[in-house]
C-alpha cells in the first residue's frame, strides 16, 4: 500500500501539466523522496522524444511496423 500522494505525479510534472501549487509541492517533495526522484528519472528522457511529431500520430493508431528494416 503506497500512500505517497506524489507517486503518480511524475508524468504530469514532466509534461508541464501541473498547476503552480501542485508543481511546487511536488518539487518540494522530490527533495525529500528518493523514490519519487527515481521514478521521475525513469521517464524523464521520454517526452523529448515526442518533439516534432505530427498530432496525427496521437489521434489515429499508426501502423505499428511501417517497414521492418533490417
Amino acid at each position: 500500500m503506497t500512500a505517497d500522494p506524489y507517486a503518480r505525479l511524475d508524468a504530469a510534472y514532466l509534461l508541464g501539466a501541473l498547476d503552480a501549487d501542485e508543481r511546487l509541492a511536488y518539487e518540494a517533495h522530490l527533495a525529500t523522496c528518493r523514490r519519487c526522484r527515481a521514478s521521475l528519472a525513469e521517464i524523464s528522457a521520454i517526452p523529448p522524444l515526442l518533439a516534432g511529431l505530427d498530432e496525427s500520430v496521437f489521434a489515429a493508431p499508426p501502423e505499428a511496423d511501417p517497414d521492418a528494416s533490417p
Partner: protein
Amino acid sequence: MHEDEQNQCCDRGDATGQVVSCHLVVAALGRLTQEHRDVLRELYFRGSSVAQAAHALGIAPGTVKSRAYYALRALRLAIEELGDVE
C-alpha cells in the same frame, strides 16, 4: 522507402543511450492504447494542463495524472522493445 509515414524524421537521443528515430517513436506510440495516446496528445502536443485535459477527455484530473504516468511508462517500454528488435 515509404513516403507515407513521417516526412521529417530525425534521430534523437534516448533513454537507453541509443539513438531513437522518430519512426521508432511513432511505431511505439502505435502500441499504446488510444487512451494513453489521448492523454499524451492533450498534455504534450496541445500543452494542456491537467484540468484542461480532464475537461477535454471527460475524465477526472486524478485519472489524467495516473493515465499520463502509465502512458509514459508504456511508451518507454515500447521504445525499448522496438529498439531491441531493430
